[in-house]
């Protein structure tokens, strides 16, 4: 295995939350959005990140692109710590790591033309590029992501959701990044359009040799696109493993429940299936349960689960689960 392009070491991100109607001197509550997460990403690999809402997927993505402060652990990009980076290196990192956002329309400035939006990273990092070159590169890229280049002077509100997402992808790709982070890029789209966008992403990734982190709460999409999957729950990794293995033979009780909740598009099979249904809701990240955070809803819960935090344990070939009672 070569050197990972990105490695996250025991990362935690904590937000301060002001209690309501509090005095100025009362300490803020700590919200643990991500805690104790370690992953490696190889060049050219696609890592899927799944988990329900509030599990810290988006926060992890934002920590990697550097828009939320990291409160513990480290993120290494090509062996260099993000925290220790100077201005120049930081700029390089910003250039190499690009992001595609969840809400296609909200991620585009409504007052700018599509051409200006796509060109923005280029103009920011290579301000000396002649206008003609900028325009031709934007045109090429628009064609590449399946948009007609003569729409260059249009405004975002004149496009459909799928087209807006293509614009967002074009913007992320114009600097030829090494790593692309897709934060639920298809969850706001129609199923048919989802497929188009996912296929576009896989194709682009193959052509450009991108590494990709793909976030979604839809397992079927993630399974289709990723090489490896990380399952997150309440900011902590539950299971990491090759995508096929995790989907076919999940070892962590949470992953098992998650896989079982994926609907089968066949009413008979769907009705015949017995599946463990998770009781209760996601606990508050302000006061996570002690020990294993999943123990409040876990079907296999035992007394020891409340004690120490479970460590990642090998549960199959290349597969790890944070549960001592994994299958």
């Amino acid at each position, binding site marked *: 295995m070569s050197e990972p392009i990105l490695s996250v070491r025991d990362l935690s991100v904590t937000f301060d939350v002001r209690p309501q109607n509090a005095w100025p001197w009362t300490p803020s509550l700590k919200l643990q959005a991500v805690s104790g997460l370690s992953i490696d990403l190889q060049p050219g690999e696609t890592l899927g990140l799944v988990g329900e809402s509030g599990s810290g997927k988006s926060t992890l993505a934002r920590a990697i692109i550097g*828009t939320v402060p990291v409160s513990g652990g480290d993120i290494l990009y090509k062996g260099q710590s993000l925290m220790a980076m100077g201005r120049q290196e930081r700029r390089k990192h910003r250039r190499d790591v690009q992001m595609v956002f*969840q809400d296609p329309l909200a*991620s585009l*400035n409504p007052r700018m033309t599509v051409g200006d939006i796509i060109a*923005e990273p280029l103009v920011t990092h290579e301000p000396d590029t002649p206008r003609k070159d900028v325009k031709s590169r934007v045109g090429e890229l628009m064609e590449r992501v399946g948009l007609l280049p003569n729409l260059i002077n*249009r*405004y975002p509100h004149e496009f459909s959701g799928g087209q807006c997402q293509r614009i967002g992808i074009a913007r992320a790709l114009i600097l030829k990044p090494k790593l692309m982070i897709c934060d639920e890029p298809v969850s706001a789209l129609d199923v048919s359009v989802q497929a188009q966008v996912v296929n576009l992403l896989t194709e682009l990734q193959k052509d450009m040799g991108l590494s990709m982190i793909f976030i979604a709460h839809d397992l079927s999409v993630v399974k289709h696109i990723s090489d490896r999957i990380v399952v997150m729950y309440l900011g902590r990794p539950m299971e990491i493993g090759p995508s096929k293995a995790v989907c076919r033979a999940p070892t962590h009780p949470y992953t098992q429940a998650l896989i079982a909740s994926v609907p089968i598009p066949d009413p008979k099979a769907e009705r015949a299936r017995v599946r463990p249904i998770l009781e209760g809701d996601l606990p508050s990240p302000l006061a996570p349960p002690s020990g294993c955070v999943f123990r409040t809803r876990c079907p296999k819960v035992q007394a020891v689960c409340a004690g120490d935090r479970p460590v990642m344990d090998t549960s199959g070939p290349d597969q790890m689960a944070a549960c001592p009672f994994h299958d």
Partner: protein
Amino acid sequence: MITQTDVKMLEETAHLAQVRGRSLWEDARVRFFRNKAAVAGLFVLIAICAFALFGGLFAKFEPDYVDFSLMGANAYQGVPSLSSGHYFGTDIDGRDLFARTVQGTSISLLVGIVGSLVAVVVGTLYGATAGYVGGRTDGIMMRIVDILMSIPFMFVLILMLVIFGRSILMLFIGIGLISWLNMARIARGQTLTIKNKEFVEAAIATGVSPFTIILRHIIPNLLGIVIVYATLLVPEMIIFESFISYLGLGVQEPNTSLGALINAGASQMTNGTLWMLFYPLGFFLITLFAFFFVGDGLRDALDPKDR
């Protein structure tokens, strides 16, 4: 054979090759011009500006020319008439009221426009910076605004005019000092909502500098509201200046403003020379109404959700 429809289609596709998007600004313009009251207001406003700029060319007298022959005979000889050349009559000192109204309108408009320009430039940049930077900087910057707002400005302005002498420059400075405060608050509030949008995050992630983000992403998106507020601020400033001039502290002789003219006319109300009051008052009201209609039209056009 090329038929008529083919030609038409070809023309259409040729047009498609250089298709231009319709920006939100263009949409707003279309909506604005569909609003009849606003368009009427705009035309009246243009007419008033033309009156203020070129009305002097039609006046038969200079605004400060005193017709001594009319002294004491105002009520029957200074009556508005086309034949005497005093279209709007004369004022108490025998000066041509038409020329004086032209001058007063232009000074009132100038005060209003300067006041709201200061508000737009200073207020928007200040508010957007405070809102975007946030945290302690935001707190300090906005507390400064609060403190400035809590000072009774009419009092300070009157003091300034008394101490530094009554001049138009002083009046501009005084009006410039207060006009941007509300604008800064509005701009900050808008910035707070805009800066959490994903396109701003995208810009940050790409590495665009904060100043560029404010200029390229924040300000164009709050400009709609700023323009509306600025249009409504112009009449407010005109009223403000008129009040100061009405108190006798604003524009000084031989210059004049609508407020000063109304003041002079009101003091002669009982002498049977009502034209001295009604001509400047009419222009004052028409200007204000026109601005309000245009402002309303702009608000409807730029913010279609709030209708």
